[in-house]
Protein backbone atom coordinates (compact mmCIF):
# COMPACT_ATOMS: atom_id res chain seq x y z
CA UNK A 1 0.00 0.00 0.00
CA UNK A 2 1.25 3.46 -0.90
CA UNK A 3 0.74 6.34 1.46
CA UNK A 4 -0.45 9.56 -0.16
CA UNK A 5 -0.51 12.92 1.56
CA UNK A 6 -3.09 15.31 0.14
CA UNK A 7 -3.41 19.07 0.57
CA UNK A 8 -5.92 19.99 3.26
CA UNK A 9 -8.57 21.22 0.83
CA UNK A 10 -8.48 17.95 -1.09
CA UNK A 11 -8.73 15.93 2.13
CA UNK A 12 -11.86 17.90 2.95
CA UNK A 13 -13.23 17.32 -0.53
CA UNK A 14 -12.51 13.60 -0.34
CA UNK A 15 -13.83 13.49 3.23
CA UNK A 16 -10.75 11.86 4.66
CA UNK A 17 -8.55 12.65 7.63
CA UNK A 18 -4.78 12.46 7.50
CA UNK A 19 -2.95 10.49 4.88
CA UNK A 20 -4.66 8.02 2.60
CA UNK A 21 -3.38 4.72 1.26
CA UNK A 22 -3.90 3.33 -2.21
CA UNK A 23 -3.27 -0.08 -3.65
CA UNK A 24 -1.50 0.05 -7.00
CA UNK A 25 -1.68 -2.87 -9.39
CA UNK A 26 1.58 -3.39 -11.26
CA UNK A 27 4.43 -0.93 -11.21
CA UNK A 28 3.97 2.12 -9.02
CA UNK A 29 4.47 5.24 -11.10
CA UNK A 30 3.21 8.80 -10.91
CA UNK A 31 0.46 7.86 -13.30
CA UNK A 32 -0.60 4.63 -11.63
CA UNK A 33 -0.67 6.15 -8.15
CA UNK A 34 -2.83 9.04 -9.35
CA UNK A 35 -5.05 6.63 -11.28
CA UNK A 36 -5.54 4.56 -8.13
CA UNK A 37 -6.15 7.65 -6.02
CA UNK A 38 -8.82 8.95 -8.40
CA UNK A 39 -10.45 5.54 -8.63
CA UNK A 40 -10.68 5.40 -4.87
CA UNK A 41 -11.83 9.01 -4.55
CA UNK A 42 -13.56 9.98 -7.81
CA UNK A 43 -14.31 13.43 -6.42
CA UNK A 44 -10.61 14.19 -6.85
CA UNK A 45 -10.70 13.68 -10.58
CA UNK A 46 -9.90 16.98 -12.25
CA UNK A 47 -8.53 18.56 -9.09
CA UNK A 48 -4.96 17.22 -9.36
CA UNK A 49 -4.73 16.54 -13.09
CA UNK A 50 -6.69 18.02 -15.95
CA UNK A 51 -9.62 15.79 -16.88
CA UNK A 52 -8.65 15.50 -20.51
CA UNK A 53 -4.91 16.07 -20.84
CA UNK A 54 -4.05 14.49 -17.47
CA UNK A 55 -1.49 17.26 -17.04
CA UNK A 56 -0.65 18.20 -13.46
CA UNK A 57 -2.48 21.32 -12.39
CA UNK A 58 0.04 24.18 -12.39
CA UNK A 59 -0.14 25.04 -8.68
CA UNK A 60 0.37 21.48 -7.47
CA UNK A 61 3.66 19.62 -7.08
CA UNK A 62 4.59 15.99 -6.43
CA UNK A 63 7.28 15.08 -3.90
CA UNK A 64 8.68 11.84 -2.47
CA UNK A 65 11.83 11.02 -0.53
CA UNK A 66 12.83 14.68 -0.59
CA UNK A 67 12.76 14.73 -4.38
CA UNK A 68 10.58 16.90 -6.58
CA UNK A 69 8.93 14.54 -9.07
CA UNK A 70 6.61 17.15 -10.54
CA UNK A 71 8.37 17.44 -13.87
CA UNK A 72 9.13 13.76 -14.30
CA UNK A 73 7.31 11.82 -17.05
CA UNK A 74 4.09 10.20 -15.80
CA UNK A 75 5.45 6.68 -16.13
CA UNK A 76 8.46 7.37 -13.93
CA UNK A 77 8.67 4.62 -11.26
CA UNK A 78 8.27 5.88 -7.71
CA UNK A 79 11.16 5.38 -5.26
CA UNK A 80 11.33 1.99 -3.55
CA UNK A 81 10.71 3.56 -0.15
CA UNK A 82 7.36 4.84 -1.41
CA UNK A 83 6.47 1.48 -2.93
CA UNK A 84 7.32 -0.27 0.35
CA UNK A 85 5.16 2.19 2.26
CA UNK A 86 8.09 3.54 4.24
CA UNK A 87 7.82 7.04 2.75
CA UNK A 88 4.72 8.91 1.55
CA UNK A 89 3.96 10.28 -1.88
CA UNK A 90 3.13 13.92 -1.29
CA UNK A 91 0.85 16.18 -3.32
CA UNK A 92 1.62 19.73 -2.32
CA UNK A 93 -0.27 22.90 -3.13
CA UNK A 94 1.86 25.89 -4.02
CA UNK A 95 2.31 28.21 -1.10
CA UNK A 96 1.39 31.65 -2.36
CA UNK A 97 0.29 34.93 -0.95
CA UNK A 98 1.85 37.62 1.13
Amino acid at each position, binding site marked *: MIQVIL*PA*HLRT*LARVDGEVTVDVQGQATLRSVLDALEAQY*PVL*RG*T*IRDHVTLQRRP*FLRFFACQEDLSLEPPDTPLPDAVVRGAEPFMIIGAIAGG
Partner: protein
Amino acid sequence: MSKVRVLVGTRKGAFILTSDGKREKWDVSGPHFAGWEIYHMKGSPVDPNRLYASQTSGWFGQVIQRSSDGGKTWETPGGEAMPTPGSMPAGASNKFVYDVSAETGKPLTTHQWYDGTQHPWEFKRVWHLEPSLTEAETVYAGVEDAALFKSTDGAKSWHEVSGLRGHGTGPKWQPGAGGMCLHTIVLDRSNPQRMFIAISAAGAFRTDDGGKTWKPINQGLRSQYIPDPNAEIGHCVHRIAMHPSRPGVLFMQKHWDVMRSDNAGDLWQEVSGNLPTDFGFVIDVHAHEPETIYVVPIKSDGEHFPIDGKLRVYRSRSGGNEWEPLTKGLPQSDCYVNVLRDAMAVDSLDSCGVYFGTTGGQVYCSADAGDSWAPIVHDLPAVLSVEVQTIA
Protein backbone atom coordinates in the same frame (compact mmCIF):
# COMPACT_ATOMS: atom_id res chain seq x y z
CA MET B 1 -45.66 31.72 6.92
CA SER B 2 -43.26 32.16 4.06
CA LYS B 3 -39.55 32.32 4.67
CA VAL B 4 -36.57 33.38 2.68
CA ARG B 5 -33.26 31.66 2.13
CA VAL B 6 -30.39 33.82 0.91
CA LEU B 7 -27.54 31.98 -0.80
CA VAL B 8 -24.26 33.85 -0.56
CA GLY B 9 -21.12 32.90 -2.45
CA THR B 10 -17.89 34.45 -1.20
CA ARG B 11 -14.14 34.33 -1.82
CA LYS B 12 -13.73 31.89 1.06
CA GLY B 13 -16.85 29.78 1.20
CA ALA B 14 -20.63 29.74 1.01
CA PHE B 15 -23.12 31.02 3.53
CA ILE B 16 -26.85 30.46 3.82
CA LEU B 17 -28.95 33.09 5.57
CA THR B 18 -32.53 32.25 6.51
CA SER B 19 -35.34 34.27 7.99
CA ASP B 20 -39.09 34.33 8.25
CA GLY B 21 -41.15 36.68 6.13
CA LYS B 22 -40.43 39.63 8.40
CA ARG B 23 -36.78 39.45 7.42
CA GLU B 24 -35.60 40.91 10.71
CA LYS B 25 -33.92 37.99 12.48
CA TRP B 26 -31.54 35.80 10.57
CA ASP B 27 -29.87 32.44 11.02
CA VAL B 28 -26.45 32.18 9.42
CA SER B 29 -25.09 28.85 8.27
CA GLY B 30 -21.55 28.45 7.00
CA PRO B 31 -18.95 28.62 5.84
CA HIS B 32 -19.70 25.72 3.55
CA PHE B 33 -16.68 24.66 1.46
CA ALA B 34 -14.47 26.85 3.65
CA GLY B 35 -11.47 28.31 1.90
CA TRP B 36 -12.83 27.83 -1.63
CA GLU B 37 -14.23 30.50 -3.89
CA ILE B 38 -17.94 30.05 -4.37
CA TYR B 39 -18.75 31.95 -7.51
CA HIS B 40 -22.45 31.19 -7.48
CA MET B 41 -25.17 29.20 -5.73
CA LYS B 42 -28.73 28.92 -6.92
CA GLY B 43 -31.82 26.90 -6.09
CA SER B 44 -34.12 25.10 -8.46
CA PRO B 45 -37.45 26.85 -9.03
CA VAL B 46 -38.98 23.37 -9.32
CA ASP B 47 -37.57 21.98 -6.07
CA PRO B 48 -36.36 24.70 -3.68
CA ASN B 49 -34.35 22.19 -1.67
CA ARG B 50 -32.25 21.38 -4.72
CA LEU B 51 -29.32 23.77 -4.70
CA TYR B 52 -26.35 23.94 -7.02
CA ALA B 53 -23.05 25.58 -6.15
CA SER B 54 -19.94 26.42 -8.13
CA GLN B 55 -16.87 25.80 -5.97
CA THR B 56 -13.59 26.80 -7.54
CA SER B 57 -9.92 27.27 -6.75
CA GLY B 58 -6.82 28.42 -8.56
CA TRP B 59 -5.05 25.36 -7.16
CA PHE B 60 -7.59 22.60 -7.53
CA GLY B 61 -9.88 23.77 -10.32
CA GLN B 62 -13.62 23.41 -10.50
CA VAL B 63 -15.99 21.43 -8.30
CA ILE B 64 -19.76 21.37 -8.58
CA GLN B 65 -21.69 20.80 -5.37
CA ARG B 66 -25.33 19.84 -5.08
CA SER B 67 -27.72 19.78 -2.14
CA SER B 68 -31.08 18.07 -1.93
CA ASP B 69 -32.04 19.40 1.49
CA GLY B 70 -31.76 23.14 1.13
CA GLY B 71 -28.07 23.32 1.91
CA LYS B 72 -27.89 21.23 5.08
CA THR B 73 -25.79 18.59 3.33
CA TRP B 74 -23.92 18.60 0.04
CA GLU B 75 -22.59 16.11 -2.43
CA THR B 76 -20.42 16.18 -5.53
CA PRO B 77 -22.66 14.57 -8.15
CA GLY B 78 -20.94 11.59 -9.68
CA GLY B 79 -18.13 11.80 -7.17
CA GLU B 80 -19.14 8.67 -5.30
CA ALA B 81 -16.66 5.85 -4.93
CA MET B 82 -17.01 3.41 -7.77
CA PRO B 83 -18.88 0.21 -6.90
CA THR B 84 -16.13 -2.02 -8.17
CA PRO B 85 -12.52 -1.11 -8.83
CA GLY B 86 -11.98 -0.15 -12.42
CA SER B 87 -15.64 0.33 -13.28
CA MET B 88 -16.79 3.44 -15.04
CA PRO B 89 -17.33 6.41 -12.75
CA ALA B 90 -20.88 7.51 -12.08
CA GLY B 91 -20.21 10.95 -13.47
CA ALA B 92 -17.85 13.86 -13.51
CA SER B 93 -19.57 16.95 -12.22
CA ASN B 94 -16.44 19.05 -12.66
CA LYS B 95 -15.64 17.93 -16.20
CA PHE B 96 -16.32 20.72 -18.67
CA VAL B 97 -14.96 19.80 -22.05
CA TYR B 98 -15.46 22.09 -25.01
CA ASP B 99 -17.24 20.54 -27.96
CA VAL B 100 -15.10 20.53 -31.07
CA SER B 101 -17.03 17.88 -32.94
CA ALA B 102 -18.30 18.77 -36.36
CA GLU B 103 -21.37 16.63 -35.72
CA THR B 104 -22.69 18.74 -32.89
CA GLY B 105 -21.48 22.21 -33.75
CA LYS B 106 -18.95 24.16 -35.68
CA PRO B 107 -15.63 23.23 -34.11
CA LEU B 108 -13.90 26.15 -32.45
CA THR B 109 -10.49 26.12 -30.89
CA THR B 110 -9.43 29.74 -30.52
CA HIS B 111 -10.74 33.16 -29.60
CA GLN B 112 -9.14 36.57 -29.63
CA TRP B 113 -6.58 37.28 -26.92
CA TYR B 114 -5.86 40.65 -25.32
CA ASP B 115 -3.23 41.44 -27.93
CA GLY B 116 -5.46 40.54 -30.86
CA THR B 117 -3.86 37.16 -31.55
CA GLN B 118 -5.85 33.94 -31.45
CA HIS B 119 -5.71 31.98 -28.19
CA PRO B 120 -6.93 28.48 -27.35
CA TRP B 121 -10.19 28.10 -25.48
CA GLU B 122 -9.31 26.96 -21.93
CA PHE B 123 -11.80 26.05 -19.23
CA LYS B 124 -11.16 27.90 -15.99
CA ARG B 125 -14.28 27.99 -13.84
CA VAL B 126 -18.06 28.17 -13.65
CA TRP B 127 -19.28 31.70 -13.05
CA HIS B 128 -23.01 31.12 -13.01
CA LEU B 129 -25.42 28.22 -12.54
CA GLU B 130 -28.97 28.60 -13.80
CA PRO B 131 -31.35 25.80 -12.86
CA SER B 132 -34.13 25.01 -15.31
CA LEU B 133 -37.54 26.53 -14.70
CA THR B 134 -39.24 23.18 -15.28
CA GLU B 135 -36.82 20.31 -14.53
CA ALA B 136 -35.00 20.01 -11.19
CA GLU B 137 -32.30 17.82 -12.73
CA THR B 138 -31.55 20.26 -15.54
CA VAL B 139 -29.16 23.12 -14.97
CA TYR B 140 -27.10 25.43 -17.19
CA ALA B 141 -23.57 26.62 -16.43
CA GLY B 142 -21.92 29.74 -17.76
CA VAL B 143 -18.19 29.26 -17.77
CA GLU B 144 -14.84 30.96 -18.38
CA ASP B 145 -13.52 30.81 -21.13
CA ALA B 146 -16.94 31.77 -22.33
CA ALA B 147 -19.25 28.90 -23.17
CA LEU B 148 -22.60 27.51 -22.10
CA PHE B 149 -22.92 24.00 -20.69
CA LYS B 150 -26.01 22.00 -19.79
CA SER B 151 -26.61 19.07 -17.47
CA THR B 152 -29.78 17.01 -17.50
CA ASP B 153 -28.73 14.61 -14.73
CA GLY B 154 -28.48 16.91 -11.74
CA ALA B 155 -24.97 18.16 -12.60
CA LYS B 156 -23.38 14.72 -12.81
CA SER B 157 -22.26 15.35 -16.36
CA TRP B 158 -22.09 18.38 -18.61
CA HIS B 159 -22.31 18.92 -22.33
CA GLU B 160 -21.61 22.12 -24.16
CA VAL B 161 -24.42 23.99 -25.87
CA SER B 162 -22.03 24.41 -28.72
CA GLY B 163 -24.18 26.45 -31.06
CA LEU B 164 -23.33 29.53 -29.04
CA ARG B 165 -19.57 29.45 -29.60
CA GLY B 166 -20.11 28.14 -33.09
CA HIS B 167 -22.60 30.68 -34.35
CA GLY B 168 -19.94 32.72 -36.12
CA THR B 169 -18.52 35.50 -33.97
CA GLY B 170 -16.72 33.22 -31.46
CA PRO B 171 -13.20 33.73 -32.84
CA LYS B 172 -13.65 37.49 -32.30
CA TRP B 173 -14.61 37.24 -28.64
CA GLN B 174 -12.07 38.77 -26.31
CA PRO B 175 -11.67 38.63 -22.51
CA GLY B 176 -12.39 41.58 -20.28
CA ALA B 177 -10.27 42.45 -17.28
CA GLY B 178 -11.92 39.68 -15.28
CA GLY B 179 -11.44 37.05 -17.95
CA MET B 180 -13.70 35.91 -20.75
CA CYS B 181 -16.68 34.74 -18.78
CA LEU B 182 -20.24 33.80 -19.55
CA HIS B 183 -21.80 35.25 -16.41
CA THR B 184 -25.48 35.79 -17.13
CA ILE B 185 -28.12 33.25 -18.15
CA VAL B 186 -31.74 34.39 -18.34
CA LEU B 187 -34.47 31.84 -19.03
CA ASP B 188 -37.86 32.79 -20.42
CA ARG B 189 -40.77 31.20 -18.56
CA SER B 190 -43.16 31.99 -21.41
CA ASN B 191 -40.98 30.45 -24.09
CA PRO B 192 -38.81 27.43 -23.21
CA GLN B 193 -36.97 27.77 -26.51
CA ARG B 194 -35.74 31.25 -25.72
CA MET B 195 -32.71 32.06 -23.60
CA PHE B 196 -30.46 35.08 -23.14
CA ILE B 197 -26.82 35.01 -22.11
CA ALA B 198 -24.12 37.63 -21.65
CA ILE B 199 -20.37 37.46 -21.96
CA SER B 200 -17.64 39.84 -20.90
CA ALA B 201 -16.48 41.20 -23.21
CA ALA B 202 -18.41 39.83 -26.17
CA GLY B 203 -21.90 41.10 -25.41
CA ALA B 204 -25.41 39.65 -25.22
CA PHE B 205 -26.79 36.75 -27.25
CA ARG B 206 -30.20 35.12 -27.68
CA THR B 207 -31.43 31.77 -28.83
CA ASP B 208 -35.01 31.13 -29.96
CA ASP B 209 -34.61 27.43 -30.65
CA GLY B 210 -33.43 25.98 -27.37
CA GLY B 211 -29.75 26.71 -27.94
CA LYS B 212 -29.21 25.34 -31.43
CA THR B 213 -28.65 28.74 -32.98
CA TRP B 214 -27.77 32.09 -31.45
CA LYS B 215 -27.64 35.69 -32.53
CA PRO B 216 -25.81 38.65 -31.03
CA ILE B 217 -28.29 41.16 -29.59
CA ASN B 218 -26.12 44.22 -29.15
CA GLN B 219 -27.64 46.76 -31.48
CA GLY B 220 -27.94 50.09 -29.72
CA LEU B 221 -25.06 49.42 -27.35
CA ARG B 222 -22.26 51.94 -27.66
CA SER B 223 -18.88 51.28 -26.06
CA GLN B 224 -16.23 53.96 -26.46
CA TYR B 225 -13.45 51.63 -25.34
CA ILE B 226 -13.57 49.38 -28.42
CA PRO B 227 -12.34 50.26 -31.91
CA ASP B 228 -15.85 50.38 -33.35
CA PRO B 229 -18.12 51.66 -30.55
CA ASN B 230 -21.19 50.26 -32.32
CA ALA B 231 -19.72 46.87 -33.18
CA GLU B 232 -21.88 43.77 -33.39
CA ILE B 233 -19.85 42.16 -30.59
CA GLY B 234 -17.18 43.24 -28.13
CA HIS B 235 -19.36 45.04 -25.58
CA CYS B 236 -18.67 44.43 -21.92
CA VAL B 237 -22.12 43.55 -20.67
CA HIS B 238 -22.09 43.19 -16.89
CA ARG B 239 -25.58 41.90 -16.16
CA ILE B 240 -29.04 41.47 -17.69
CA ALA B 241 -32.31 41.28 -15.77
CA MET B 242 -35.84 40.44 -16.83
CA HIS B 243 -39.22 40.41 -15.09
CA PRO B 244 -40.93 37.06 -15.68
CA SER B 245 -44.24 38.69 -16.57
CA ARG B 246 -42.68 40.71 -19.41
CA PRO B 247 -40.08 38.52 -21.04
CA GLY B 248 -39.60 40.86 -23.98
CA VAL B 249 -38.33 43.65 -21.75
CA LEU B 250 -34.70 43.40 -20.72
CA PHE B 251 -32.60 45.65 -18.52
CA MET B 252 -28.83 45.75 -18.77
CA GLN B 253 -26.01 47.13 -16.71
CA LYS B 254 -23.21 47.51 -19.20
CA HIS B 255 -19.63 48.39 -18.25
CA TRP B 256 -20.77 51.95 -18.63
CA ASP B 257 -24.47 52.69 -19.37
CA VAL B 258 -27.72 51.29 -18.08
CA MET B 259 -29.80 50.06 -21.01
CA ARG B 260 -33.24 48.64 -21.74
CA SER B 261 -34.73 46.75 -24.63
CA ASP B 262 -38.44 46.37 -25.33
CA ASN B 263 -38.00 43.80 -28.07
CA ALA B 264 -36.05 40.98 -26.42
CA GLY B 265 -32.70 42.57 -27.13
CA ASP B 266 -33.15 43.40 -30.81
CA LEU B 267 -32.54 47.06 -29.99
CA TRP B 268 -31.29 48.73 -26.83
CA GLN B 269 -31.70 52.27 -25.60
CA GLU B 270 -29.85 54.00 -22.81
CA VAL B 271 -31.83 54.73 -19.65
CA SER B 272 -29.03 55.98 -17.41
CA GLY B 273 -30.88 59.29 -17.01
CA ASN B 274 -29.94 61.12 -13.83
CA LEU B 275 -27.69 58.46 -12.32
CA PRO B 276 -24.56 60.01 -10.78
CA THR B 277 -22.49 57.46 -12.71
CA ASP B 278 -23.75 54.76 -14.98
CA PHE B 279 -20.87 52.36 -14.37
CA GLY B 280 -21.79 49.37 -12.24
CA PHE B 281 -22.25 45.65 -12.17
CA VAL B 282 -25.66 44.64 -10.79
CA ILE B 283 -29.17 45.29 -12.02
CA ASP B 284 -32.41 43.70 -10.91
CA VAL B 285 -36.17 44.08 -11.23
CA HIS B 286 -38.79 44.37 -8.47
CA ALA B 287 -40.72 41.11 -8.06
CA HIS B 288 -44.15 42.68 -8.57
CA GLU B 289 -43.47 45.92 -10.44
CA PRO B 290 -41.88 45.20 -13.82
CA GLU B 291 -40.92 48.83 -14.35
CA THR B 292 -39.16 49.17 -11.00
CA ILE B 293 -35.47 48.45 -11.32
CA TYR B 294 -32.40 48.70 -9.11
CA VAL B 295 -28.72 49.43 -9.75
CA VAL B 296 -25.74 50.24 -7.56
CA PRO B 297 -23.70 52.97 -9.28
CA ILE B 298 -19.95 52.52 -9.00
CA LYS B 299 -17.63 55.45 -9.59
CA SER B 300 -15.74 54.20 -12.64
CA ASP B 301 -13.97 51.29 -14.28
CA GLY B 302 -10.76 52.46 -12.65
CA GLU B 303 -12.26 53.08 -9.21
CA HIS B 304 -14.54 50.22 -8.25
CA PHE B 305 -16.29 51.85 -5.30
CA PRO B 306 -19.26 54.15 -4.70
CA ILE B 307 -18.93 57.85 -5.38
CA ASP B 308 -17.86 59.92 -2.36
CA GLY B 309 -17.76 56.82 -0.15
CA LYS B 310 -21.58 56.73 -0.05
CA LEU B 311 -23.17 53.35 -0.69
CA ARG B 312 -26.38 54.07 -2.57
CA VAL B 313 -28.80 51.84 -4.39
CA TYR B 314 -30.66 53.68 -7.11
CA ARG B 315 -34.24 52.79 -7.95
CA SER B 316 -36.24 53.72 -10.99
CA ARG B 317 -40.00 53.23 -10.93
CA SER B 318 -40.30 54.17 -14.58
CA GLY B 319 -38.10 51.51 -16.15
CA GLY B 320 -35.11 53.82 -16.24
CA ASN B 321 -34.12 57.44 -16.89
CA GLU B 322 -35.59 58.75 -13.63
CA TRP B 323 -33.70 57.43 -10.63
CA GLU B 324 -33.86 58.02 -6.89
CA PRO B 325 -31.10 57.24 -4.40
CA LEU B 326 -31.92 54.81 -1.61
CA THR B 327 -29.69 55.46 1.36
CA LYS B 328 -31.58 54.73 4.58
CA GLY B 329 -29.54 52.21 6.53
CA LEU B 330 -26.62 52.18 4.10
CA PRO B 331 -23.23 53.70 5.01
CA GLN B 332 -23.02 57.27 3.76
CA SER B 333 -19.39 57.94 4.50
CA ASP B 334 -16.06 56.19 4.06
CA CYS B 335 -17.55 53.22 2.21
CA TYR B 336 -15.33 51.89 -0.57
CA VAL B 337 -16.73 48.47 -1.39
CA ASN B 338 -17.89 47.08 -4.71
CA VAL B 339 -21.03 45.12 -5.57
CA LEU B 340 -20.24 42.43 -8.11
CA ARG B 341 -22.46 41.40 -11.01
CA ASP B 342 -24.17 38.39 -9.44
CA ALA B 343 -24.52 39.93 -6.00
CA MET B 344 -28.06 41.34 -6.08
CA ALA B 345 -31.38 39.50 -5.87
CA VAL B 346 -35.02 40.05 -4.98
CA ASP B 347 -37.50 37.87 -3.13
CA SER B 348 -41.15 37.52 -4.09
CA LEU B 349 -42.88 38.24 -0.80
CA ASP B 350 -45.74 40.73 -0.92
CA SER B 351 -43.42 43.48 0.21
CA CYS B 352 -40.59 42.79 -2.19
CA GLY B 353 -37.25 42.18 -0.51
CA VAL B 354 -34.07 43.39 -2.18
CA TYR B 355 -30.65 42.00 -1.26
CA PHE B 356 -27.10 42.71 -2.23
CA GLY B 357 -23.64 41.73 -1.06
CA THR B 358 -20.41 43.69 -1.11
CA THR B 359 -16.74 42.99 -1.50
CA GLY B 360 -16.43 44.18 2.10
CA GLY B 361 -18.42 41.17 3.28
CA GLN B 362 -21.72 42.85 4.03
CA VAL B 363 -25.04 41.44 2.87
CA TYR B 364 -27.81 44.03 3.03
CA CYS B 365 -31.53 43.39 3.01
CA SER B 366 -34.39 45.75 2.36
CA ALA B 367 -37.76 44.29 3.27
CA ASP B 368 -39.59 47.30 1.84
CA ALA B 369 -38.47 47.36 -1.78
CA GLY B 370 -35.44 49.51 -1.09
CA ASP B 371 -36.86 52.22 1.14
CA SER B 372 -34.72 51.11 4.06
CA TRP B 373 -31.82 48.71 4.49
CA ALA B 374 -30.16 46.71 7.23
CA PRO B 375 -27.15 44.43 7.15
CA ILE B 376 -27.86 40.74 7.65
CA VAL B 377 -24.14 40.09 8.12
CA HIS B 378 -21.25 42.48 7.86
CA ASP B 379 -18.02 40.54 8.17
CA LEU B 380 -18.13 37.77 5.60
CA PRO B 381 -15.36 37.29 3.06
CA ALA B 382 -15.80 39.33 -0.11
CA VAL B 383 -19.21 38.51 -1.58
CA LEU B 384 -19.27 37.17 -5.12
CA SER B 385 -22.93 36.28 -5.49
CA VAL B 386 -26.29 36.59 -3.79
CA GLU B 387 -29.42 34.66 -4.67
CA VAL B 388 -32.65 34.45 -2.71
CA GLN B 389 -35.35 31.82 -2.49
CA THR B 390 -38.86 32.60 -1.30
CA ILE B 391 -40.16 29.45 0.31
CA ALA B 392 -43.84 28.96 1.05
